[in-house]
């Protein structure tokens, strides 16, 4: 029998803690050395050629105008960045909402009992998912906007409500309402919707009667919109063709339209797959139980299956949302003034390239972090519901 060796401190070259720190410092040192070398080169090269490396250029006048924004060429580069970020957010938020709706519909369609619907949605998903987004976007811009939409002289004016041309799509809009008051109305509407939904749910939990939260809440929302519109003067403008431009209403920029459509149809094909997988992951018994309760097909899907499926779908959906935000940078190639385009144009007008692009990159990373924290929040909230 051997007795276990007495415990003693190992020599330092066998001490795990020391070794691990030495190892980490070694790796860190290596990386630091590479970074130092790269940065040293950068400093020397920029100093040699007299290029600024600081962010002073943000205060310079931009010297370019941004279509569709209240931005003239004497404002600072900093303000141009702000407009760019807002435009990125604009296309991303609208895109996420539309892609989610379309994706859910197609995802459900792929599991439909209707053969035609099943086949069409399958073809949609398999085609769109396997195409490069840039090909789709080139198609929506060069193909759809520039070739299918008519010239301004021959605009389509369905019912006198819309003006559709390759210079943009005019939509009826509030007149003379400031963005702030519109936001206020929307905020009041959504707040009311949320409060009413909570109230209805609690009533439903207490008494067992149907909650109809969407009905009451949505009704309130629409009522607020209508009342708000009346309060703001009850005025509206219809888009009309005025010479070479669309006057009145609100104009959807053609590049925005092309970029949005491409982002939506591409992302929806990925979301549809996620939704399909999540619905299939909901135990079959749930649907059967709903049928046993004599719920209609719609109720079964909307009230029983989808809520459970969406819970599973949130993390991968979040990834798709992040992808959409990042993919919106492709809009720069099609004259949509989002963050990347603003950066490219300001670099063309004399801003130093490296700081300008680095700034854009940092904005994207921050946007992604914000978006992913929203997703995590949603994930945690819906996980809590699971008992």
């Amino acid at each position, binding site marked *: 029998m051997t007795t276990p060796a007495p415990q003693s401190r190992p020599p330092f070259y066998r001490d795990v803690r020391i070794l*691990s720190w030495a*190892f*980490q*410092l070694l*790796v*860190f040192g290596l*990386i630091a050395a590479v970074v130092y070398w*790269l*940065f040293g*080169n*950068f400093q020397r*090269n*920029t100093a040699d050629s007299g290029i600024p490396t600081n962010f002073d250029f943000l205060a310079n006048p931009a010297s370019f105008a941004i279509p569709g924004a209240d931005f003239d060429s004497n404002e600072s580069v900093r303000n141009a960045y702000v407009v760019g970020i807002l435009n990125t957010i604009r296309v991303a938020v609208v895109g996420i909402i539309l892609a989610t709706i379309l994706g859910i519909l197609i995802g459900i369609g792929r599991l*439909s*009992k*209707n*053969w*035609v*619907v099943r086949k*069409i949605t399958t073809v949609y998903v*398999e*085609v769109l*998912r*396997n*195409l*490069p*987004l*840039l*090909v*789709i976007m*080139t*198609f929506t811009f*060069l*193909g759809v906007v520039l*070739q299918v939409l008519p010239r301004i002289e021959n605009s389509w004016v369905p019912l006198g409500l819309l003006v559709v041309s390759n210079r943009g799509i005019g939509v009826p809009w509030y007149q003379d309402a400031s963005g702030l008051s519109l936001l206020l109305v929307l905020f009041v509407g959504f707040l009311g919707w949320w409060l009413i939904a909570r109230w209805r749910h609690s009533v439903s939990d207490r008494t067992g009667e149907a909650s109809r939260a969407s009905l009451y809440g949505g009704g309130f929302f629409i009522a607020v919109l209508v009342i708000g519109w009346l309060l703001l003067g009850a005025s509206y403008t219809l888009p009309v063709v005025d010479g070479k431009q669309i006057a009145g209403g609100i104009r959807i920029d053609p590049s925005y339209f092309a970029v949005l459509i491409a982002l939506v149809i591409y992302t929806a094909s990925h979301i549809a797959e996620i939704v399909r997988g999540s619905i299939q992951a909901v135990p079959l018994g749930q649907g059967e139980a709903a049928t046993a309760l004599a719920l209609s*097909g719609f109720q079964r899907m909307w009230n029983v299956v989808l809520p459970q499926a969406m819970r599973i779908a949130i993390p991968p959906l979040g990834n798709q949302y*992040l992808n959409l935000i*990042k*993919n919106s*940078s*492709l809009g*720069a*190639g099609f004259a949509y003034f989002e963050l*990347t385009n603003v*950066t*490219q144009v300001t*670099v063309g007008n004399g801003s130093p*390239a*490296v700081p300008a*692009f*680095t700034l*854009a*990159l940092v904005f*994207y*990373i*921050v*946007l*992604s*972090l914000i978006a*992913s924290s929203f997703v995590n929040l949603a994930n945690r909230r819906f996980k809590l519901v699971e008992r």
Partner: protein
Amino acid sequence: MTTVSVTKPSALTWVRRNLFRTPLDAILTIVFGSLAVYVGIRGLLFVFVNGRWEIISVNLKLLMVGRWPADELIAIAVALVILGLWAGLIAGIIAGRQVRKGTSAIEGMTRLERASDLGRRFGLVIATLLLLLSLTDTSGPWLMVLFTFVGGVVGRLIGGQIGVRSLPSWVSRLGIVVMVVIPVWAYLYMASAVPLADWEGFLFNLSSAAAGVVLSFPLGLLLALGRRSKLKLLKGMSIAYIEAVRGAPLYVLLLLANVSLEFFVPAALAPSKVVRAIVTFTLFTAAYIAEIVRGGLQSVPLGQEEAAKALGLSPTKQMRLIVLPQALRNVIPAQIGQFISLFKDTTLAGLALGILDLLNAAGAITQQSDFRGQGLIIETLVFVGFLFWVGSFTMSRESQRLERKLGVGTR
């Protein structure tokens, strides 16, 4: 009211069950059915009647390999034949090993069944190749594809013979080295004929995606191990890299690489646009590969590691022989997915760096004096989209097949 049919399913029943179950169903069927028929007819008319495809056949070489010098095309042919042989060998060895282990799926099949299985899996690719060949007016491409095919078949037959044998370990190790060296050699051989900077057209899209995925793998593996590590500093650095890269759009990274790389490395090292694109693809993809590998490592049950330990394997051997092989095998489908995604994203390099890749070439040829101002962009985009689609679709189906075979997610 719908009644449940109890008679034997007939065509009529099928129609009623699948198309007209409820009134809503009927409406959906009619609306979407007529839409599909309309789009289908328009599509067929476009492809066979209205489409003006001469722009494609005239510019086929430009679209495929860009301005690759005509007298160096032989290099592509040689590399392709070798790669065909290589792919055949690998397929053969894998099939042979399956036969030896008794897990072969094809052994029980008749020749006809095997042919139809292959046809289902690769028919689309073969049809596309034949389509492309039919557009050429020289015999070179035909011969190239023919020899590549012959190379593949020969490789498959030889590989099958090698695979069923059990070889001494030094031979199989040597074999692995040879199999790794062959594609690298083919790549370098082509690069020696025409410098990397001049790789254009579809060749750029394919080769740079392949290079990006292969090169990013070691870095991704290290990042994954780093992120899993208990060493705080290492873990922190890995997480920072992975999250920062995953939060950044590839397009902006490419733009940044385009204008800034020469400031960070000495002028002598400042690489060509193609190399720049590959470097960016590599650094970008590594972050995603890291996450995939991390998932793979998590999927290996702890018991495996404990069992290895119980066998008295050293920690290195535990990781190298037990954990990593299982982890990496499990992530092969996800890696194919990453390759598909990068393959599609290579089009961004055309826009950001001005490389004449397939998509950029498709735009450029519509400005040629013979084709200008005729709206041919639709035709060229459909062609480009079709090539990318065939590639991505076939690969994603193969990866799903592999996923089922490996049983990922079912264990």
